[in-house]
């Protein structure tokens, strides 16, 4: 499959990370590109190496949302990596971490708005009568920073994050992080970086838990498979999905390329397409070594 070797399995110091974005059935049918994107970087405060993971989902209705999603990932991995890594010390407390995450998000937001205005002006889109401006590049953004013993979470729109932490009755436990408040009644209404209320609607949370040893980030194309929304009004992680996609990274096969292709085949399968025909992105990370490294939150 073209591009299958570039899905990016990377070993960080304590985390193994793998991600992939696939074009949705509907986009393929209509000759539209995949408008999802994902990326990773590292914050590197002294004595530590902290993965930064991000996923973005460009709005299907906007003409340049593929560029928007890619720009958002580029900015998020760069800015969050820099801001979380620039101080010698680990975040002093939860509020300090939350402040750093908010500052980083606002910096990404400003750069996104400036960058997309510049891109619209460059090609004269506005002059040709299109709406132009940031709205043409509309995208969601979800970022996770995997610190030692802590996790920072920043999400705008309908992306989601599931953590694996703890064991009960011999079964690993999975936890859906709280999502931003829905933007409207319908499932396809959400908030984008280009939305006027983006800074108000962003959700920022911090998790302090040494037992987090698996993380999944995804765009909403996988919400129906990865979350068990149909079993009650409150969405929860679908444990069979999370266990399965993390297990194959915990115990990789002899060929990383074959493992990557198998995950792509899952995301492109009829059964997942029937649940949601949108583009799909899954970034998964599992801890590969023991205890936390570097400074911990008190």
């Amino acid at each position, binding site marked *: *499959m*073209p*591009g*299958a070797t*570039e*899905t990016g399995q990377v070993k960080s110091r304590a985390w193994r990370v793998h991600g*992939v*974005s*696939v*074009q949705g*059935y*509907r*986009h*393929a*049918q209509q000759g539209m590109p*995949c408008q999802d*994107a*994902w*990326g990773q970087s590292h914050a590197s405060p002294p004595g530590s190496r902290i993965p930064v993971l991000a996923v973005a989902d460009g*709005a299907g*209705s906007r003409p340049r949302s593929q560029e928007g999603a*890619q720009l958002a990932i580029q900015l998020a991995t760069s800015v969050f990596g820099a801001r979380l890594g620039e101080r010698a010390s680990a975040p002093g407390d939860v509020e300090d971490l939350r402040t750093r995450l908010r500052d980083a998000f606002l910096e990404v937001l400003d750069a996104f708005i400036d960058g997309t205005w510049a891109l619209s002006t460059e090609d004269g889109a506005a002059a040709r009568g299109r709406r132009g401006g940031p709205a043409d590049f509309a995208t969601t953004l979800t970022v996770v920073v995997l610190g030692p013993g802590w996790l920072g979470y920043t999400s705008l729109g309908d992306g989601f994050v599931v953590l694996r932490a703890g064991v009960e009755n011999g079964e690993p436990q999975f936890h859906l992080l709280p999502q931003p408040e829905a933007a*409207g*009644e*319908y*499932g*396809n*209404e959400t908030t984008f970086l280009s939305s006027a209320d983006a800074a108000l609607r962003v959700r920022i949370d911090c998790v302090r838990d040494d037992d987090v040893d698996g993380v999944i980030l995804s765009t909403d194309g996988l919400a*129906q*498979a990865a*979350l*068990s*929304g*149909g*079993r*009650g*009004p*409150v969405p929860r992680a*679908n444990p*069979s*999905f999370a266990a*399965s*996609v993390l297990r*194959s990274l915990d115990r990789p096969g002899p060929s990383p390329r074959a*493992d990557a292709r*198998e995950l*792509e*085949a*899952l995301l*492109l*399968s*009829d*059964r*997942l*397409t*029937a*649940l*949601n*025909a949108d*583009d799909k992105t899954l970034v998964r990370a599992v801890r590969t070594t023991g205890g936390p490294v570097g400074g911990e939150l008190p």
Partner: protein
Amino acid sequence: MNPTIPGPPATPPQDLPAAYADIELDNNAQRLPLLLCLDISSSMSGEPIRLLNEALALWGREIQEDVGLSSSVEIALVTFGGMGIGVWQGPHLLDPRATISPFVSAHQFRSPQLSASGVTLLTEAVETGMRLVAERKTELRRSGLQYYRPQICLVTDGLPTDSHGMATDAWRRLVPTLAAEQAAKRFRFYAFGIGGISDRGQQVLRELAPKYHATLKGFPFRDLLQTMSASASAEQQGAEEETFEQLFNRFKTQRSAWDA
């Protein structure tokens, strides 16, 4: 920044890959309620009702084969004609006292065999359709399922009448309700005039659906139903209003040709 994988979903794999075979999946696809509000009054007798039955059966098969729609779209039918209003769950006419939802998943939809007779209780049929859509949304919310904006599609070849077959202005009470419901984005409402619908009949549809009404030459039910599928696809993608307007423009063009 990581490159994305272009999908080959013309023939995607049928089953989950072996490594993921133990994933348990519910059908919790985002739902899109689609309610067809169909005129089966006596003026639809003969060829028109035969064409409608044929088109419904064919469309039912087509939508089942569309992997993007088959688990998402939910179909219900409300007919007006015969003895009054009929609510159909697939091929089954529901008891008027029944409290079960008439919506069935597109992949389970089987079309009914409709026959034409009686009067044109259009107003009551649209009101029934709006009530059923609102009830379905409540059910979906309570079960934690997300949904897209529902669609109601009205198809008629005549003028609204009362239960005695006399033309009535009762439909006027729908105008402010439909306007308010659509301003609140509670559903999309499409109105099609077919066959030899009169100028007065067209005027009714214009007032009920100021933006999304069209008068079609003959009885192109298949085209009309395919447009509902296209609208559902557009809704899934979060398309903007201009996309839905474009879907309708070709019908308006057809009307001009017909009028000419």
